[in-house]
């Protein structure tokens, strides 16, 4: 009954708990496990096999490097092993630029070393004896992360573009300007605020700035302030000491500390609770952090990039966001233009997205007919690039022989009316049908602001309303407008 897993083995047990996680059945994935303790190794195998994963087990870091192949995207590696330690293994993987995501397995009291491993490129760490559910959540996250990285890299190799240029280095003047801004601001080691509507690629811009900047060898740590529960966000950002609250079973560094030497990306910063804003401000001013329940103050060297789809200036006026924090974050500002302001990019974006989809599905390359591209160019894209991706994803499901035609394009919202159509008023009436007056008003203000480069006074004149009214309406509709002043190098 007892198997002795010190020798390398392949376990292909598929457990009853195997479940679809939206993307792939866990059983299709192979996970590498490296631990010199057979009991720990067997426990990891049991946990992963129970969730439907296939495992490859080895007993030291060197064997782990040898056992890695292109199919393995996640590795669980013990920190202390003979021949080659877990940390050395992570460093070697980073040097080889392997796609695999490493979850470090450490004992209690080795947290400092686990954090070092994360700084060296590990995805996360768990402590022994691990909690099965926590481990499986991490494995799924790591797997998704690895898959995205791999898709992105292979796509970039395929299209022959330099990394990070994917979504922007295309045809519109707005994108060219944006790329120039990114190039200029990347080298300046100051905090940056990226503004723009949802789905315009703000997190991609943040990553590009990191990769092109002086901290590219350091970690890039992203936190979505809107995705974290309010009561967890402080602990996630700043860490906690053991016993600081119920469930705090270990000392744990926050994301701010983990980003030491690199970049901390605070996405959806407008959703950071007001009560936490002073703590973030202190960190931005003093570069120090204090974990919850701990008196010790740690100094960290981090560049902060924040992003939001909300109008922080208006939020400051409404006392929903601290003005002093806003100015600390907004040392430099970049505006991510909406897709409707860069329709010339749509053909290239389609090509990139379709290449990614065909790669992910391991299918033939998708093609899109010119009239289908033309149709996409008439839509207003309120959901921006993310919406375009969804439309194309759906189209690839409906199309025949990997060729997308007009009939395969299903857009829920009415298309954008052309200037000629506006003049005739006919198509405009069609496109406006079924929308509420509030929606129409919001759209009219958004489009006018974009056309006027965010100039509110000019927009008000165009719309035939007072300046005061446009401010009130922007606030009421939570409209994110391109900043008209203080735009620096990011002017679009």
């Amino acid at each position: 009954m007892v198997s002795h897993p010190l020798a390398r083995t392949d376990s292909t047990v598929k457990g009853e708990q195997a479940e679809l996680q939206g993307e792939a059945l866990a059983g299709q994935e192979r996970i590498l496990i490296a631990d010199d303790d057979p009991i720990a190794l067997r426990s990891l195998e049991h946990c992963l096999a129970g969730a439907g994963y296939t495992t490859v087990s080895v007993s030291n870091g060197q064997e782990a490097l040898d056992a890695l192949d292109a199919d393995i995207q996640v590795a669980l590696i013990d920190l202390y092993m003979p021949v080659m330690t877990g940390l050395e293994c992570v460093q070697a993987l980073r040097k080889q630029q392997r796609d695999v995501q490493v979850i470090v397995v450490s004992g209690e009291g080795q947290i400092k070393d686990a954090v070092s491993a994360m700084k060296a490129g590990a995805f996360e760490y768990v402590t022994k004896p691990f909690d099965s559910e926590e481990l499986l959540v991490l494995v799924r996250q790591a797997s998704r992360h690895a898959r995205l990285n791999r898709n992105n890299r292979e796509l970039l190799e395929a299209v022959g573009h330099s990394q990070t240029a994917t979504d922007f280095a295309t045809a519109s003047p707005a994108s060219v300007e944006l790329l120039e801004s990114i190039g200029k601001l990347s080298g300046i080691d100051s905090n940056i605020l990226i503004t723009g509507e949802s789905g315009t690629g703000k997190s991609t811009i943040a990553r590009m700035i990191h990769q092109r900047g002086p901290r590219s060898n350091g970690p890039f740590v992203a936190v979505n302030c809107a995705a974290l529960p309010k009561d967890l966000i402080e602990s996630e950002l700043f860490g906690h000491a053991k016993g600081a609250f119920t469930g705090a079973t270990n000392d744990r560094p926050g994301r701010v500390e983990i980003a030491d030497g690199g970049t901390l990306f605070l996405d959806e910063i407008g959703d950071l609770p007001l009560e936490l804003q002073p703590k973030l401000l202190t960190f931005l001013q003093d570069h120090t952090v204090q974990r919850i329940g701990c008196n010790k103050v740690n100094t960290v060297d981090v560049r902060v990039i924040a992003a939001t789809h909300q109008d922080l200036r208006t939020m400051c006026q409404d006392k929903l966001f601290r003005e002093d924090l806003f100015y600390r974050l907004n040392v430099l500002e970049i505006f991510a233009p909406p897709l409707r302001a860069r329709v010339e990019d749509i053909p290239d974006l389609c090509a990139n997205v379709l290449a990614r989809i065909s790669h992910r599905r391991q299918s033939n390359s998708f093609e899109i007919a010119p009239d289908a591209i033309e149709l996409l160019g008439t839509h207003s894209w309120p959901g921006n690039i993310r919406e375009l991706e969804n439309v194309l994803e759906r189209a690839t499901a409906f199309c025949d022989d990997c060729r997308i035609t007009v009939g395969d394009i299903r857009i829920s919202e009415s298309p954008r009316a052309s200037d000629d159509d506006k003049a005739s008023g006919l198509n405009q009436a069609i496109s406006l049908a079924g929308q509420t007056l509030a929606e129409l008003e919001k759209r009219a203000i958004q489009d006018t602001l974009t056309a006027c480069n965010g100039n509110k006074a000019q927009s008000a004149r165009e719309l035939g309303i007072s300046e005061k009214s446009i401010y009130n309406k922007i606030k009421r509709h939570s409209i994110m407008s391109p900043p008209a002043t203080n735009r620096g190098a990011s002017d679009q």
Partner: protein
Amino acid sequence: MSSRESGGSDSAEWGHFDLPAFLDRVQEDREFVFELVQMFLEICDSRMRDIRSALEEGDRSGTRDAAHKLKGSLKFIHATKAAKTVEQLEQIDPASRTELAIATFSKLETEIAHLCDELARFSVSAVDR
């Protein structure tokens, strides 16, 4: 073979390892507990021998490494008492007197002996079920 079938005596019966916590961690899979217990019984002697020989050679870092290894295994089978003692051994300051390490190892030997007895009894009872 769930913990419910054991008549609820898991914690009372086993003083040297925390069977309820162990079962909880492995989703009540008693067969898997049995498997890990057998693995521990197989490797325990060699782990203890490693510590003993490092101690006898005055090799403090070897002692610490061997103790660390045993500690990991003990934690996985929820043998908290022995894990604590071996942790003490692991953390003894290399500059301190050897007698302290030897005394701690002696305590560990006693606890491991009790633990192994208990694990052997658990194994027999598991097979009987």
